[in-house]
């Protein structure tokens, strides 16, 4: 068993920032990650970091833009924290040596991004995430923070009181990919989940193969509600064949979208008469797919993104990485021809329910970054708001977990305050299938002292691995691709009731199939077959919750479009969707959104760009 004050799960942007913050606050910190830190998917972020750095800008304007972008489903205390603290965090990165793009006077550059009222997106070429990830890992090396890399966290060690709000997290159980050893990691003060996105729920995604939402699924099964899972961002400019991201920076610098008739459809077909290509991402994605559906797509699949008119010098200076990506992964030369693009899964707005300090309802369990839902992004995230979320909320969670006094949270977690049960009836059974062997922890052991809880969690994980390795059964890969296919076909940009119901049925079938899953590679050395099999269980749980949320939310808000419900319904739906695992019988409930900020209340307005 390993022992530390704070254990951070995941070593991307949020995890690295959390570890640094916890260590600065005096804690003995360890990071546990299934990838080496520099392999994390933060490194693929391209566009930039929103921060109100300049005199003509203000955090209040950033907060207003973010709230509007969220379609009024962001919680004001979290949104305001993001916007107030992003500037100091960006400057801190600069002080840590991050190579930002620069102006002639040597100050960091900022550029326009979708949905922003001021060009406040700081960036490092079109490789901002790569530079940010490496800069923060450098600080982790400098500080000598312990990193257990290529250790896959399988489960949380949580006590099993009936009410999740009374449970405590004492650590995690992890599997050493290199050796096959399973070990407990005791966390004296707290566990911070920073496991990133869940893009592998879909098959056309900008996310990495490793983005299987492990932290969200673990927290869910341990009793933490998942919040607003139905809100998935589909990025309007991904390469059609691979899902590789083409940064919003291209449109920020002046790139133009054309349909097959050569029309600049964002304006000519009235999707966004003011902002055109720089409307919010949900708006642009729907516009592109509408063009394709109405027969104005190219090869019936995609549209064109043209940046040739920007000129070679500007492209090389600010978007060089885009040229490489378009060439290597689509065979297109961005300097001489338009690039084919279509919407692709990019980001999960929802995730582990937390307050503005990253605390979950379970004592000692935190979450930060994409896996968490505070909620900063509500129904739609603005471009350039993900990276600041990593550093602001990573820092907050790290400090809080290390025991720093941070005051009272405004955002409530769990079933407190004005929560309300949902009365939605799903046509298909959801949750645990009652099969043997695949049941994961759903609350922990019967004991409550830390060592026994951890010991029991280790034993369960060991049993599970032994069983998966020893028995005969089907491979997970076909189950995973069946899930990805039905999700991409039916729970995409456009959603309708019948197909969502069908998806729940498909997922039920996949759950049944998963009961027979087995790992055919018997090795204890670097058994990726085993790791992927465990991940697929996480994908299943998340896909189901996502679809449940999409069915229940009978309105059109932000990224969530419903055929039968073509308007935002503020009277009924200014509230978050929550789904509790409830020991295998998922329960849906709601809690109101917090629109009251420090000095003002954000009144919902109609959202046009």
């Amino acid at each position: 068993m390993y022992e530390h004050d704070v254990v951070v799960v995941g070593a991307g942007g949020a995890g690295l920032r959390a570890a640094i913050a916890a260590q600065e606050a005096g804690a003995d910190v360890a990071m546990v990650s299934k990838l080496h830190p520099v392999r994390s998917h933060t490194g693929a972020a391209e566009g930039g970091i929103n921060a109100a750095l300049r005199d003509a800008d203000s955090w209040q304007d950033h907060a207003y833009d973010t709230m509007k972008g969220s379609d009024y489903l962001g919680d004001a205390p979290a949104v305001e924290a993001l916007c107030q603290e992003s500037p100091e965090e960006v400057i801190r990165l600069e002080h840590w040596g991050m190579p930002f793009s620069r102006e002639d006077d040597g100050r960091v550059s900022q550029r326009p991004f979708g949905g922003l009222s001021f060009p406040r997106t700081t960036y490092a070429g079109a490789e901002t995430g790569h530079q940010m990830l490496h800069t923060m890992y450098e600080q982790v090396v400098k500080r000598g923070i312990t990193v257990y890399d290529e250790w896959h966290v399988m489960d949380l060690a949580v006590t099993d009181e009936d009410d999740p709000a009374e449970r405590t997290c004492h650590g995690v159980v992890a599997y050493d990919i290199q050796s096959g050893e399973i070990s407990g990691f005791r966390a004296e003060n707290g566990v911070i989940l920073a496991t990133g996105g869940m893009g592998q729920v879909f098959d056309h995604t900008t996310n990495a193969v490793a983005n299987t939402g492990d932290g969200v699924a673990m927290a869910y099964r341990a009793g933490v509600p998942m919040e607003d899972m139905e809100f998935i961002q589909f990025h309007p400019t991904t390469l059609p064949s691979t899902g590789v991201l083409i940064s919003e920076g291209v449109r920020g610098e002046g790139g133009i979208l054309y349909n097959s008739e050569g029309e600049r459809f964002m304006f000519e077909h009235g999707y966004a008469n003011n902002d055109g290509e720089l409307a919010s991402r949900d708006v642009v994605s729907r516009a592109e797919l509408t063009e394709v559906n109405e027969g104005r797509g190219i090869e019936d699949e995609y549209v064109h993104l043209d940046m040739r008119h920007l000129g070679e010098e500007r492209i090389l200076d600010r978007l060089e990485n885009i040229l490489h990506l378009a060439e290597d992964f689509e065979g297109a030369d961005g300097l001489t021809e338009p690039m084919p693009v279509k919407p692709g899964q990019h980001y999960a707005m929802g995730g582990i329910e937390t307050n503005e300090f990253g605390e979950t309802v379970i004592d000692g369990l935190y979450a930060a970054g994409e896996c968490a839902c505070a909620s900063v992004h509500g129904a739609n995230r603005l471009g350039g708001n993900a990276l600041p979320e990593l550093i602001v909320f990573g820092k907050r969670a790290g400090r809080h977990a290390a025991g720093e006094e941070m005051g009272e949270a405004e955002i409530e977690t769990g079933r407190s305050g004005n929560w309300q049960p949902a009365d939605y009836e799903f046509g298909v059974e959801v949750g645990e299938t009652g099969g043997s062997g695949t049941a994961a922890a759903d609350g922990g052991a019967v004991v409550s002292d830390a060592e026994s809880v951890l010991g029991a969690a280790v034993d369960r994980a060991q049993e599970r691995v032994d069983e998966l390795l020893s028995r005969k059964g089907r491979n997970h890969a076909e189950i995973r691709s069946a899930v990805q296919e039905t999700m991409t076909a039916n729970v995409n940009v456009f959603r309708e009731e019948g197909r969502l119901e069908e998806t729940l049925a498909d997922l039920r079938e996949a759950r049944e199939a998963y009961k027979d899953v087995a790992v055919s590679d018997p090795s204890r050395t670097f058994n990726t077959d085993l790791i992927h099999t465990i991940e697929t269980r996480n994908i299943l749980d998340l896909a189901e919750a996502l679809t449940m949320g999409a069915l229940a939310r009978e309105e059109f808000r932000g990224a969530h479009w419903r055929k039968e419900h073509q308007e935002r319904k503020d009277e009924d739906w200014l509230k978050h969707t929550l789904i509790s695992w409830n020991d295998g019988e998922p329960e849906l409930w709601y809690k109101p959104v917090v629109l009251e900020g420090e000095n003002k209340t954000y009144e919902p307005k109609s959202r046009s760009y």
Partner: protein
Amino acid sequence: MSTQIPKQTEESSETEAETQPASKGEERRAEKRRRAAERREQRQEEEAEKAAADESTVELKVFRYDPQVEGKQEPRFDTFHVPFTKGMTVLDALMYARDTYDSSLTFRHSCRQAVCGSDAMFVNGGQKLACKTQISDLEEPVRVEPLPHAEVTKDLVVDMEHFYEQMEAVEPYFQTDEYPDGELEEQRQDRANREKIKMSTRCIWCGACMSSCNIAAGDNEYLGPAAINKAYRFAMDEREGEEMKQKRLEIIEQEHGVWRCQTQFSCTEVCPKDIPLTEHIQELKREAVKNNLKFW
């Protein structure tokens, strides 16, 4: 076509299931699982046969090794026939082979877009990132091996520890004593200076350069191109100041530092991010000489 090695394991687990007293339900489930597995094996064989007969397939010869699994302890090559699709990369082909024929085929990969640096391999005799190497650019059969000059953990996975140690030996973090007064004020950096270090900051730690380097192969303590490039990234960053630059030059001038490089350019040739590694090493040599003359 690769045959699954653990035949024996499979048989023994079947016997076990049969001899154990089991409830009817368990027996039924076990039977169902057995049938599903049989169906799957049959399907795999059919697909493999179909693929082998088809001309639009690509033939991969993949290095296999597992220290623990019988039949894989002696390194060998397995052949896979993968249906070719336009734009297919070596990584795509490997994933197809794994998900369709042999789930024990092991390689690191994550982002699929040449930024995580996980999947550097030895493809047809050269260090490549599998995710950005097009099958159509390669001669068949495509031979895929783990990176040379590193210990093989399993199949295409090598032990990266030594590479990481060298990276961390050059104090790979920004250091300065002089920050602007205002808390919210950034350090100034000239556009030209940012441009100068830009290429060096693109390193994704894939290890291709180190693997290609003859010197590193013969001198285990040689810092290697990636670590020296990391040192370059800081030494040339004007924000660190002159004093730090002195310190950085001392680090790279050590016995196993820049002077070991014999400018063979192999690192530069294999770098998937087009970093002019050899030039950076040469420039550091020149800086070191200039610096030494100053104190002479």
